[in-house]
């Protein structure tokens, strides 16, 4: 199934939780914020929220800035 991940098309085998997606991407969930279809997902919901076909997922973190 195809999702949009940080603005780019991204292929997944099938639905999985946001927590599993982060694990698969080697991303520490404590360091990021996640938006699913333009709605912010609170961290406790990562494990119980499924990523589905066509979802738009944004994963952001802190980088250097002024």
């Amino acid at each position: 199934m195809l999702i949009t991940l940080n603005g780019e098309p991204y292929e997944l085998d099938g639905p999985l939780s946001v927590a599993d997606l982060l694990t698969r991407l080697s991303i520490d969930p404590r360091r990021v914020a996640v938006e699913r279809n333009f709605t912010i997902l609170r961290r406790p919901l990562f494990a119980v929220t499924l990523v589905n076909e066509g979802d738009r997922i944004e994963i952001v973190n802190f980088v250097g800035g002024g």
Partner: protein
Amino acid sequence: MTDTPLVVAGRRFTSRLIVGTGKYPSHAVMAQAHAASGAEMVTVAVRRVNIADRSRESLLDYIDTNRMFILPNTAACYSAEEAIRTAHLAREAGLSNWVKLEVIGDERTLFPDTEALLDATRVLVRDGFVVLPYTNDDLIVCRKLEDAGAAAVMPLGAPIGSGLGIQNANNLRIIREFARVPVIVDAGVGTASDAVVAMELGADGVLMNTAIAGAQEPVAMAEAMKHAVVAGRLAYLAGRIPKKMYATASSPLEGVVGR
């Protein structure tokens, strides 16, 4: 003379210097510069995680979060909507509800879009954020930001990253005179004397990134900025002498030898 701490939204900062985390030669140099600066608040930006390259180290590994309060920005946002969205993401990614609010109106100057800035400030204050808006040196805009609930106002001294020094001394002085919230000069500092000028004008703090990160020796410049902010603040509190057109002798005019 002992100074009072900088208090923003009830939070106390002993240092009146706020530093950035962008454009350093390396994370390690940044960490050293932060330590040398004595700053207790650092700005960070919010960006998409690089999915393709997960090898990069996390910025947060190089920030001493026991000492440093993290202030996320909304840099590169060109509308109130973008800035509000970014602020919410920052709050979720971080540990606090503070935001350095930037809504940029023009790419070349990076001057703020003050109309959108005000809109975004109102929304974010309503949403429970502590909002520190980066603004232009306009007293009326600063006053409106205050009325909208901004915890501080952060007028520029010159364009972001320009290093031109304080180009608007009179406007900053006027803003300080009228503001009821802390005034933090954000952007424009190029070297230590610029930070001194900002503080001598009465600024409650100075925020800078490029002046330190872009210096040939960022760690040394960070230390220079620490002293500059302290020196400028003390000079402001001490009260400078009036400027005069002609000389006034410092030594007694009586008892001059051979006269």
